[in-house]
């Protein structure tokens, strides 16, 4: 499971970085989204991958070994919300640049041929 998980993150990061370096704003925002997915998966993975272990303690005396680490899950929630909000904001700026310059190039003008 770890190998598949790591491969998934790797593919997402590779695709994200490649798209981030592309000249079109839409590609950049897709790249940023992919990078944010990869980051979120990575944070989650840092809490160790475990199956069928709840993150929240129940009952008075509990053995921590039977539970998953809740902190990365809380962190990932925060990171998702923040990443989502900033990506939405980036989308607005992208559309504003498109409306003002009439092109979707990140520099606001087409490169000279």
């Amino acid at each position, binding site marked *: 499971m770890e190998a598949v998980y790591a491969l998934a993150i790797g593919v997402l990061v590779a695709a994200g970085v490649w798209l981030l370096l592309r000249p079109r704003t839409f590609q950049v925002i897709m790249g940023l989204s992919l990078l*944010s997915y990869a980051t979120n998966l990575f944070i989650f993975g840092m809490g160790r991958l475990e199956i069928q272990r709840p993150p929240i303690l129940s009952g008075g005396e509990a053995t921590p070994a039977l539970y998953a680490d809740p902190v990365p899950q809380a962190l990932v929630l925060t990171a998702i919300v923040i990443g989502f909000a900033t990506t939405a904001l980036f989308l607005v700026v992208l559309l504003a640049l498109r*409306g003002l*310059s009439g092109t979707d190039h990140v520099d606001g003008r087409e490169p000279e041929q």
Partner: protein
Amino acid sequence: MTALLDHLPILPIAVPLFAAAAMLLVGDARRTLRYSIAFGSLTVQLAVALVLLYQTTDAAAHIWPNGIGVYEIGGWPAPFGIVLVVDRLSSMMLTLTATVALAALVYSTAHWDRPGQPFHSLFQLLVMGLNGAFLTGDLFNLFVFFEVLLAASYGLVLRGLGTARVRMGLHYIAVNLAASFLFLIGVALIYGTVGTLNMADLLGHVEALPPDDRALFDAGAWILGIAFLVKAGSWPLNSWLPGAYSVSIAPVAAVFAVMTKVGVYAVLRLGTLMSEDAAAATILGEILYYTGLVTLVSGMIGMLATQHLKRLVSYSVIVSSGLLLASLGLGIEAVTPPVLFYLATSVLTTAAFFLLTGMTDRTRLVMPPAHEPDAQGDILPVYMAFGVTSPDPYGTEEEVGAAIPAAMAFLGLMFVCCVLLVAGLPPLPGFVAKFTLLSVVLETAPVVGARNAGWVLAVAVLATGIVSVVALTRIGMRLFWSPAQRRTPRLHVVEAAPVAFLVLVCLGLTAASGPVMRFFDATARSLHDPDTYIETVLGSRVASRTEGDAQ
């Protein structure tokens, strides 16, 4: 009263948050109410910052032993709960932020805060993010506050719209979003290896790590460091900075001057906490020293190459970041006090200079071309969405407040003061900062076996001075001595006063450089004594329990 004093550390975060929320409810028509909320909030923050500054000094050692105050949010002790930590460094940064923000706010009321998106709410949120980043004792919260201040800054960069602003804003947002992901990856790696995010708690766990995990932790720390260096405007990660800073309007750029220093602050804070670990400290020092030097040189080249005053000031921000990083990279404890002094002056200087550029821009006779309505004569939908009607609503002059007489003389005087500050010439504190820095570096570098590094840094510091003088004189002559292409702008008191205020604060720093340096000495001592910091933060649990028993 004491109960209120106990809760002081949360105010720099809570007050701007509530002020920002309250101002969203106040419509454009009730501008006076909005101003009073904004001013009230910043005045309270300045007062709180000054009280905190006092509480961390030796004069008030009975309040917080060692000058470190710990505030447990939610009452959970560290490392289980999230804590705010006030020490000398954070209280000094809080005071700087509040001072600059207050000046920028006064300035913005001239006409910069309208029309368009809710300027004042974003402004308060930016200040809240800055305050939070300086106060928090927790790595993940540092990320959250970074995001708060960045999100607010994204909105503020775009103020006034215009193609250049949106284009630079887009670059700025893209770079900083990517840096934020690096930040998160670094934080996750650190949590995954040591199992804690509390800055004070890290060190104890790091020392006990097996070598494999240690390598992973180091990777996390480096990735985190890269994220900080992006924010600090360090070469080669700073190409976004001059563009974004020079297109944003003057009061916003002034607060951004503090924003770059958040990166330097984070490097300083975590670097000193980790400095117990000698091997890591040496590598960190070398990397900081060389990137700092290259940053400094690249900033100087930018200063010489640019023709536009605001861009030039942006490059001087890069120069100051480079100087700070390179001096910290020497790894000499005695260098820290002058570095802190330089940090304080450079924040005030660049803020004053950015505010000044807002006024000198108006001396240009040729106005930027006015917005031409498109074929149907409507306003572009983009402008409607942002609530403005033309690309640059700040080109026109509105009649606000009283105009000051002798506008050109005032501008010239302030310009000369700013040049003296940036170049580090007497009698302004730029000189004191650079002079003490040079004397300490040349005195102590040979002792620790870094003679060459010390000399190179000294030459670089002197070179920045001469380059600033050359570049700024050239622009100054064009601005003030070629009246044929210039006109005298109307200056309003609300615009002129903040610049004069910041310059006066700088003068005050020179006059009081003795006590100020003593404070920075104490700051450096407590920074280079991470054990006390760690004990105070983690030991607050014990302290609060005994206090509870006593009651």
